[in-house]
């Protein structure tokens, strides 16, 4: 048997039991990789259940800096007997299997082609600790300790992490280090350390940070000036509003009075959540809500109202897999058409697609400017993978000179100097009209907001010509939006090659890696990352400038491709689907294989 040998380039997976405190031990492992200066990506794979069921945590270490998921497990740490049969199977040939050897492994689970590393974790815990809770917690530290020795990781780094973690509970530092040492000593005595997989310290992460997308969005909402957040709990978006509240409680309390410069309302449902957000924005406060697919479904009617009545609102959709309840704890990018055309009638909405926590922070903050400027809903589209997993990211940045762009709002003075105010008059010819905030002027500037058709002065009308004029103005605003919203990013400059690739959001990580894989096969392509919908001229040019475009996305129906066909009116044959929708983040290997396959098919035809 040949064992896998690799330095700084492999995948470790932990198989745990939900609710046993393994998360913090696993995170510690990931943090140690980061502090050793190595790029990594981590994925929580968890069930839609609170306690007792299997849960996995997968970490990829990549010296080359690839941050997408990679298939195949090189080292499995199995701490859950329940999932053992499938865990044994999922290890790559030549890989390693770390397990609790307190009980003997059933012969049925012994494979010839992998290396078994048994550590009597429970036995050690029973011997060392009396308190059942401590036994559970320290068992996690024992396997992390063992790994640090097996993989030759810098133990000082772990000590530093523990010291940081228990800064306020210093008494816990020594026992945690001790538990790790129990694991280290055991494997040192019983196995040859390190194994074929090793980590060496490098200086590859620079000033990067590690953060999950939901926290970054929550913080972005604080910086972007949101004062009202309304939400209804749903995985995977719950932690976004929690983060907003946490940061706001830290950063937005009035020093003198102790009162809050923000309000968070846990609404009775998503209908109410977006209703609150719309009401607050109508009244001049920046407000947002966050939800996932089922919530967006419920918010449809209100989204149509905000679109037609032209009320700013920000909604962050942390997508999970559908349809219906689908796989609620698995990732997808499958709310795209729902979000783009939410609500009845001719309505369409602006979508923003961040790819990493830094962009989550920046684009969430920017969304409030965009919503105010365009007076329409802005939907920030992330997914479970970006929202709930920690990602390596460039540090967050904020320009202190930045002013909030409140868009076109008339104040009392403007109104005073005006003969007649018309809420829906296109004064500037860009489709965007001027609003007034309730309470501004005693006799001028009030208007009636409604979802029914109205004229330029906000007066109800069913006059067909007036209605058409208004609907066309909304389209003009749509065109204006194209150049204001975040522009796509080009990789591999210009239109040099016949073929191009389009991707967005979390598919970016794997798509960029796939391009490298293809290059190794002698295939080069141009690439574009979408950051927003509607598509700007740049997207149109990119599509028109290539013979064929591969559109990579994580849903069954090629939803982004549909938008491209629909909005750019391009020949569907030109846009080739690269789809993954099994609920796991797409991998580079899969993308490159698919592209290769589809190229062959094309040639045969």
């Amino acid at each position, binding site marked *: 048997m040949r064992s896998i040998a690799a330095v700084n380039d492999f995948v470790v997976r932990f198989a745990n039991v939900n609710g046993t405190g393994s998360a913090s031990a696993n995170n510690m492992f990931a943090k140690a990789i980061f502090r050793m200066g190595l790029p990594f990506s981590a994925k929580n794979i968890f069930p839609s259940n609170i306690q007792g069921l299997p849960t996995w945590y997968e970490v990829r270490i990549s010296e080359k800096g690839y941050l997408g998921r990679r298939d195949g497990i090189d080292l499995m740490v199995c701490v859950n007997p329940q999932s053992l049969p499938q865990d044994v199977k999922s290890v790559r040939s030549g890989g390693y299997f770390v397990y609790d050897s307190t009980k003997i492994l059933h012969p049925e689970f012994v494979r010839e082609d992998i290396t078994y590393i048994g550590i009597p974790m429970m036995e050690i815990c029973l011997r060392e600790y009396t308190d059942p809770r401590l036994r559970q917690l320290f068992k996690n530290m024992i396997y992390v300790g063992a790994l640090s020795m097996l993989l030759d990781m810098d133990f000082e780094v772990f000590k530093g992490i523990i010291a940081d973690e228990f800064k306020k509970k210093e008494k816990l530092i020594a026992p945690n280090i001790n538990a790790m040492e129990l694991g280290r000593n055991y494997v040192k005595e019983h196995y040859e350390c390190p194994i074929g997989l090793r980590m060496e310290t490098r200086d590859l992460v620079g000033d990067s940070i590690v953060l999950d997308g939901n926290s970054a969005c929550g913080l972005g909402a604080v910086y972007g000036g949101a004062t009202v957040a309304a939400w209804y709990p749903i995985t995977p978006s719950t932690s976004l509003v929690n983060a907003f509240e946490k940061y706001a409680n830290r950063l937005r309390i009035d020093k003198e009075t102790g009162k809050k410069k923000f309000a968070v309302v846990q609404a009775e449902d998503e209908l109410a959540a977006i209703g609150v957000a719309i009401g607050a924005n109508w009244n001049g*406060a920046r407000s947002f809500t966050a939800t996932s697919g089922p919530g967006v479904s419920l918010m449809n009617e209100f989204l149509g109202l905000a679109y037609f009545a032209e009320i700013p609102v920000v909604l962050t959709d942390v997508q999970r897999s559908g349809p219906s309840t689908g796989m609620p704890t698995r990732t997808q990018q499958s709310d795209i058409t729902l979000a783009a055309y939410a609500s009845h009638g001719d309505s369409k909405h602006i979508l923003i697609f961040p790819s990493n926590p830094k962009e989550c922070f920046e684009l969430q903050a920017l969304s409030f400017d965009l919503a105010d400027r365009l007076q329409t809903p802005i939907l920030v589209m992330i997914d479970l993978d970006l929202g709930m997993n920690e990602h390596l990211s460039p540090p967050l940045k904020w320009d202190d000179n930045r002013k909030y762009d409140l868009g076109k709002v008339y104040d009392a003075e403007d109104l005073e100097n005006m003969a007649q105010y018309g809420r829906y008059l296109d004064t500037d010819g860009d489709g965007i009209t001027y609003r007034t905030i309730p309470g501004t002027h005693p006799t001028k500037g009030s208007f009636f907001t409604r979802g029914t058709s109205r004229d330029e002065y906000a007066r109800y009308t069913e006059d067909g010509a007036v209605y058409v004029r208004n609907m066309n103005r909304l389209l003009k605003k749509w065109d204006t939006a194209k150049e204001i919203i975040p522009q796509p990013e080009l990789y591999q400059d210009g239109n040099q090659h016949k073929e191009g690739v389009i991707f967005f959001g979390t598919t970016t990580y794997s798509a960029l890696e796939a391009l490298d894989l293809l290059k190794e096969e002698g295939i080069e392509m141009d690439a574009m990352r979408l950051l927003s919908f509607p598509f700007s001229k740049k997207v149109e040019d990119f599509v028109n400038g290539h013979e064929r475009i591969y559109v990579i996305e994580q849903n069954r129906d090629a939803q982004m491709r549909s938008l491209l066909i629909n909005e750019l009116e391009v020949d569907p044959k030109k846009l080739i689907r690269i789809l993954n929708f099994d609920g796991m983040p797409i991998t580079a290997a899969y993308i490159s294989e698919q592209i290769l396959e589809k190229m062959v098919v094309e040639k045969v035809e």
Partner: protein
Amino acid sequence: MTYVKPSFRHPELPKNDLGFTKKDYEGAISTLCGGCGHDSISGAITQACFEMAIAPHRLAKLSGIGCSSKTPTYFLGNSHGFNSVHGRMPSVATGANLANRDLIYMGVSGDGDTASIGMGQFVHAVRRNLNVVYIVMNNGCYGLTKGQDSATADVGSVSKNGINSFNAIDLPALALELGATFVARSFSGDRTQLIPLIKAAVSHHGFALIDVISPCVTFNNNTGSTKSYDYVREHITTADVVDYVPPGEEITMEYAEGSSAELTLHDGSMLQLHKLAPNWDPRDKLAAMQRIYLSRVNKEILTGLLYIDPDTQDLHDILNTVDKPLNELREEDLCPGSGALEEINRSLR
């Protein structure tokens, strides 16, 4: 009915303390059916706001969808209005109120809007003690969709569609149960009762429900309907008569029947209660619940101020938000700046 409103104003029209005439509190000409109870309520709102000398731009009127929800167009033409979607006015009002605690919020809804599609939002607005005047124009039917029974139609009541066989939802009783801090019922045809109730509701610091029986002349004013003008006039009973006394003004009035009591509201205004029903104390929740129940059994329509807790905490008090309206806060109040961000970056390494 005429659809053109004369712009001429008589120079000697009476003015309120702000110098506005009653015309300044009117809205567009109503397009509801002639005789619709809702128009009388619009009139009462106009009168109440004129008499209270509310600056029109300091009041925001919000509604859902329905004939009743159209009425904000027909009163207070100088106030910002928001006709939202069916049944969802409470959430929009909640957001508006959170954005600016300094304005007066008047929510207008129908019984279909509130007691069916909007029930969820209604009960939660009550629960949060949102500082809003919540007027239900209750006609026991859906006017705008042509006369279907609503959830407040009494069992056995006859409408165009036949006899209603389902129990009615009693909004005041429900609101009491949910902890509403101001609960009243009135009748669109009784302006002398309705106007002071609206004024008191405006002065109340918290959720103020006024359920106004408001006959739909087109679909539900027939014999056998328990929300018709005739039926209501025959079955109405009054719990109390309310006089609203603005802050700093004193009035004295003698009432023959029953005893009187005075209540000071949050803004310093006063309510003088003249009880017609024996032993009526609108601060006694249990008694109010009992009395409402009793009148239902007796097929009476009990009107007046049924319950009030004049000393309450509204949603802003509960959330502990700053006194300054949130919509007036700017970068310097809201943005923690790059320094704080650097610290956050450091904590994430």
